[in-house]
């Protein structure tokens, strides 16, 4: 089965690293994978989206309407790229909303965004990954925590197995102890969900 995963957030949140981990894990699982990344200008705090395609795929970009999972590191950006999703697809979101640093721009609230995603018929799960990662000592591990949470919900089936993801984290992140711990914490939180 082909899997189309959108990862969205704000430049600097470790979005490309998250995608790299997924790609390594897919390789470990023996699956074909393509990751289309956003580099350059938008990495400076702009809107960033990465397309991860697993399976019998050839083109790098997910067409609108065909994504089956969205991992959102930031709420506004998660909502922005929800248009890539299929009806009824899943959204796993970090409970973090960063108003864009534009003077006098009104940002919606986290509750508004979650509500509108649900109202659009998407299956929405959320966790405060930054807060949980901070408890482990490093806010930058919010991304692997969210990955663990996603895996724990069973949403990465056909992409990678939990063990494979752990190995992938160790391959991609140089000093990976906290990142792996965060990943495990994510798994645990999902089982409580």
């Amino acid at each position, binding site marked *: 089965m082909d899997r189309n995963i959108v990862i969205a957030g704000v430049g*600097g949140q470790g979005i490309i690293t998250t995608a790299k981990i997924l790609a390594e894990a897919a390789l470990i699982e023996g699956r074909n994978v393509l990751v*289309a*990344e956003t580099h350059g200008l938008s990495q400076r705090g702009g809107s960033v989206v990465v397309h991860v395609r697993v399976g019998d795929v*050839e*083109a790098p970009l*997910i067409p609108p*309407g065909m994504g089956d999972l969205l991992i959102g590191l930031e709420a506004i950006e998660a*909502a922005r790229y929800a248009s890539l999703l299929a009806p009824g697809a899943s959204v796993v979101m970090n409970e973090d909303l960063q108003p864009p640093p534009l003077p006098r721009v009104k940002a919606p609230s986290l509750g508004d965004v979650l509500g509108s995603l649900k109202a659009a018929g998407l299956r929405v799960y959320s966790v405060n990954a930054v807060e949980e990662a901070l408890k482990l000592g490093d806010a930058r591990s919010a991304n692997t925590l969210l990955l663990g949470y996603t895996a724990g919900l069973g949403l990465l089936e056909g992409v990678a197995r939990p063990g494979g993801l752990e190995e992938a984290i160790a391959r991609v992140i140089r000093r990976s102890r906290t990142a792996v711990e965060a990943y495990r914490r994510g798994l645990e939180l999902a089982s409580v969900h």
Partner: protein
Amino acid sequence: MPHREVLAEPGTRVVMLGNVAIARGALEAGVAYASGYPGTPSSEILEALSEASKKLGGPHVEWSINEKVALESAYGASLSGVPAMATMKHVGVNVAADPLFSLAYTGTPSAMVVVSADDPGMWSSQNEQDNRWYGVHAYIPVVEPSGVQSAREAVIEAFNISRRHGHPIILRTTTRTSHTRGIVEVGQINVEAVRGKGKFRRNIERYTLVPSHARRLRIELLDRWERIEEELSRSSLNSVEGDGELLILGVGLGYRYAREAARLLGVEARIAKLQTPVPLPRTFIHKALEGIDRVLVLEEGDPVVEQMLKAFLHDEGVRVEVHGREDGYIQRWGELGLDNVVEALSKLTGVEAGLPKPPRVEASLPPRPPALCPGCPYRGVYPGLRRAVRSSRVEVVYSGDIGCYSLGVLPPFRVQDTIVEMGGSIGLANGMARVAEGQVPIAVIGDSTFFHSGITGLINAVHNRNPMLVIILDNRTTAMTGHQPHPGVPVDARGGEAPQVDIEALVRAIGVEHVETVDAFTIRGVERAVRRAMDYVRREGKPAVLIARGSCILVALSQARRLGVGYPVYRVNPDKCMACTVCYTAFNCPAIFSLEDGKAKINPVLCTGCGVCVEVCPFNAFEPVEEPSEEWILLMRTATPG
């Protein structure tokens, strides 16, 4: 970024970025010299080659001052007998175009590949130019890999063709090949060749393009062009599969879209993979067209192949319908995508597309353009600049340039009135200085850009006495493209020590009299220095230079992490904050938010400890959670990459 996977064991399958696959292919092909100037989406190719070079002792890799020098350096290496490569983004080829055209005339005794990384969709560029035209224009064949999956083989084959014909090749990649990660099976690196040295063998009749030689070489060139075209018809890079009355001609990455779209729609079609668009391999195309009555051309960029195909059909007297970008089956601008390809194919075949309708999310989402990082040295410079200009009551034109500092175009800063190309800030200011009545041009330019092509404009301004203020933003790196070094910092491409060219001494040496260096992290310091410089420009009618120095905070942070230096985080004292909004509107740091009551709050995860907010707040509400260390204060002002 190290890109260690470039050295993966032969025979293994590894996940790598398209650009890293290109680097790997070059190593397998035995590239012994590589130069380039950074530019998205090309930069990782040279970064990966540097990483390889550190471990293998070759190839020689360097970041050049600009693309023209990069191409010339690789040209020189290639004339000296080793396979060479120059890498750049599409607009970089404009800068390098002069030697490029000559390269086709002289040819090379070894092999040479010029990588042009095009950016359809303009994700990180000022235009959408399609550099396959350079191939047509300069008589240089273009190889265009069909995605990350084929990038490695395509580069190896590009070197082979170049070697066989003693002729350069342009490897055209696009954003979705360069910046897509995929699984690549790697082969053997030619270690002996990458460490190789050569010899320049004199051949005056060939390497000196005086008119009498050039006339002969022009005829030889046309002859080589014919032979290469014939050979490309048999190239392993091109192939045909499937059958039907419809031919989908998939050029480069277009091939991948062709296959997936045909499968999605369940359409029977013949699909041709064309990875050598220029020159159009006529025999190959002829065969691919047998029994076909309609063609859909899928290519990234302009209708280059589409137009050549139509001309070819006209010459052959063959009547086949050709669709693509010219007749709007695929839109003229932007990238290919499965959605627009499926739509075109569906329109052509009448097969219902049936892509699912995406869910409608009813939320009004504010845009999120990129912004200067929290702690960026430019965030202190721009308010200082604006205050000085406001108080000097002079009308100014902000002649802007390309780099992270271009983000000063956005509110609240608005200190870039023009952004056209690298070096253009000072270039344009030369003309403005003479005719824009009652206005003083202020050129705002980064350090890497100044070396790239700002210095020539400044020499021009000195010699022609063109009054302008030039602000060189010296953040000790080429930040926008991923923190590469440049001649002004003491590191080379491989992270080794290198002599650094002193901007201040350089500027004085060319005759600028008013030169001042100021700490970028003090708004008032910048304000006073700008005022002094503006007074000089108006009084003397000559150019003045202000160098605002402060390290890119991302480089400072990564050095701090490496050296175990802590950085402070700041917070707002809620009793002192009067909700005046200055810090999150006029100063606009992304780490500072407004609370319901309008008071400010710092997001400690985003704060990088630059401390400039302390100076911004009229009520002294910002304070460090812990006092900043001297090491950190120094790193913020001196850190360089590597």
